[in-house]
């Protein structure tokens, strides 16, 4: 029963409502010990932990509704199909897409990008054409374009960054030209945390008639995404970084593009009719969903996005901003630590190096203090080269992290100094 008190609480300002301890209770994996220490999970950019609701949804699906979608005449198949398609509508709302058929389920951000490279790329990108990416992309937003360019005789152009990790928009403006056929850029950099000014970059590209793909793998769980406000042509993200299961992700594509694009893979579900002479393809989005999809994953993703929306992405972002400020100060106070990536607009990621100590050694020592971070090149080797470091340590935050956990990181870094002198 909802009481008046509840109603008032709901109307109170967001900050007053943020009860991180209660939120943490929803995430069973956070409550364990590693190497005898309470887990401090700061590897959220690699993958997020999952709320119980998502885990329950997977169990419920496999326990009760399990059957194939879009093909059964029986009740279970109808239920599964309904749950699957409802999840699509949840994703549509999450991204504020105009239509549910603009939501294509894929394995993750990587597959979404490969789909666009293969389908859009092979159709509209030819010899001498150009694709623009940036210096701070994840390998998954570099290599598919390299493969495409190699195959088509096209050219890959790269937007440079300044020492803070911000894209140089003047250079970007110069790169955009008559030969540009696509811009593919991350919303948030996984290696530096830079929030790229994608709305402005899309405007600039559109003025030249160039479509834009946004890699939202790091953005979807951290800020409110509105594909219509951004006016992007493609947007991809991975479920597992946004509280959902692994193996499921989303490609949003503007219907006008998806309609004109050829299928990515052939198989069941993506056809309307097949003869040996001619196959006609299914309507959107099924044209791009060949074979039995990851049904449980899709259902789990729907629940994950509902959970995020329930918290409110604006409040999530506000809490994380506060944590990022606190974490930045913690690192600045730690001996011999230098932060890599100091963009004015940053989210979630603290990438750093420790003077005289390799990132891998820092990672091992922190792990022994129960602190999970990533050490390495973060699938962004060009970023490492640009900043002249072999690797960095990356602490990446989520809304369920706390100041106490960042204090533990600070203590862990003092231990690194103790050991390495």
């Amino acid at each position: 029963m909802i009481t008046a008190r509840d109603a008032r609480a709901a109307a109170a300002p967001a900050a007053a409502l943020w009860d991180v301890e209660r939120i943490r209770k929803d995430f069973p994996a956070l409550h364990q010990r590693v190497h005898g220490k309470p887990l401090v999970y700061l590897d959220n950019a690699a993958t997020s932990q999952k709320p119980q609701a998502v885990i329950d949804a997977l169990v419920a699906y496999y326990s009760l509704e399990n059957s194939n979608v879009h093909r059964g005449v029986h009740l279970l198949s109808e239920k599964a199909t309904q749950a699957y398609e409802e999840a699509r509508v949840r994703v549509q709302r999450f991204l504020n897409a105009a239509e549910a058929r603009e939501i294509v389920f894929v394995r993750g951000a990587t597959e979404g990008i490969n789909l666009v490279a293969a389908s859009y790329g092979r159709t509209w990108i030819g010899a001498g054409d150009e694709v623009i990416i940036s210096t701070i992309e994840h390998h998954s937003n570099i290599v598919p374009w390299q493969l495409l360019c190699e195959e088509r005789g096209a050219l890959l152009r790269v937007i440079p960054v300044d020492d803070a990790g911000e894209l140089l928009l003047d250079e970007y403006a110069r790169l955009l030209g008559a030969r540009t056929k696509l811009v593919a850029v991350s919303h948030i950099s996984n290696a530096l945390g830079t929030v790229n000014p994608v709305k402005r970059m899309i405007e600039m590209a559109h003025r030249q008639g160039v479509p834009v793909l946004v890699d939202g793998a790091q953005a979807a769980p951290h800020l409110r995404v509105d594909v219509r406000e951004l006016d992007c042509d493609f947007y991809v993200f991975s479920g597992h970084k946004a509280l959902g299961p692994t193996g499921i992700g989303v490609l949003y594509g503007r219907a006008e593009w998806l309609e004109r694009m050829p299928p990515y893979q052939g198989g069941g579900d993506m056809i309307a009719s097949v003869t040996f002479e001619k196959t006609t393809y299914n309507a959107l989005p099924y044209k791009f969903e060949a074979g039995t999809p990851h049904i449980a994953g899709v259902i789990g993703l729907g629940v994950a996005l509902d959970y995020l929306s329930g918290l409110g992405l604006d409040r999530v972002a506000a809490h994380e901003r506060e944590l990022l400020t606190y974490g930045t100060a913690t690192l600045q106070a730690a001996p011999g630590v230098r932060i890599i990536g100091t963009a004015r607009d940053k989210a979630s990621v603290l990438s750093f190096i420790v003077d005289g100590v390799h990132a891998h050694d820092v990672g091992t020592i922190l792990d022994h203090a129960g602190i999970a971070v990533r050490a390495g090149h973060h699938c962004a080797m060009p970023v490492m080269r640009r900043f002249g470091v072999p690797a960095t340590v990356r602490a990446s935050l989520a809304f369920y992290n706390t100041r106490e956990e960042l204090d533990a990181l600070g203590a862990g870094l003092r231990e690194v100094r103790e050991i390495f002198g």
Partner: protein
Amino acid sequence: MSELRELYQQVILDHNRKPRNFGKLDGANRTAEGYNPLCGDQVRVYLDIEAGVIRDIRFEGSGCAISKAAASMMTASLKGKTIGEADQLFGRFHDMLTAAGNGGAAAELGKLAVFSGVCEFPSRIKCATLPWHTVRAALAGKDEPVSTE
């Protein structure tokens, strides 16, 4: 903490800070490069082999403390050894890191036994073995960079 101290023993930290036989070896007749894509450790070894004996050996590269110390101590222990002895040493070293509770191997390794703590850290074993794999590649005359993956 004690496991960590086992891993980062003073000898290892010392070799990390002041690696021995570091830098290019002029007049080397064998060389190879090793790379660990997981953490970016990169090492190049140079050997001067005559009549089946390692007359001199040096290395250069960048990497974590474990890989750097492993390379440094490896060069110190391989100098003057025959290729057969080097192979045998690598075998023992490898066994110490991978075969659980094999105290026997550690006993025959002399100073290299300080790496025995690495076997408690599965993700770091490749850091310690990378320079050894690289020497093997050099001895086998392989020009392709060896990778731990």
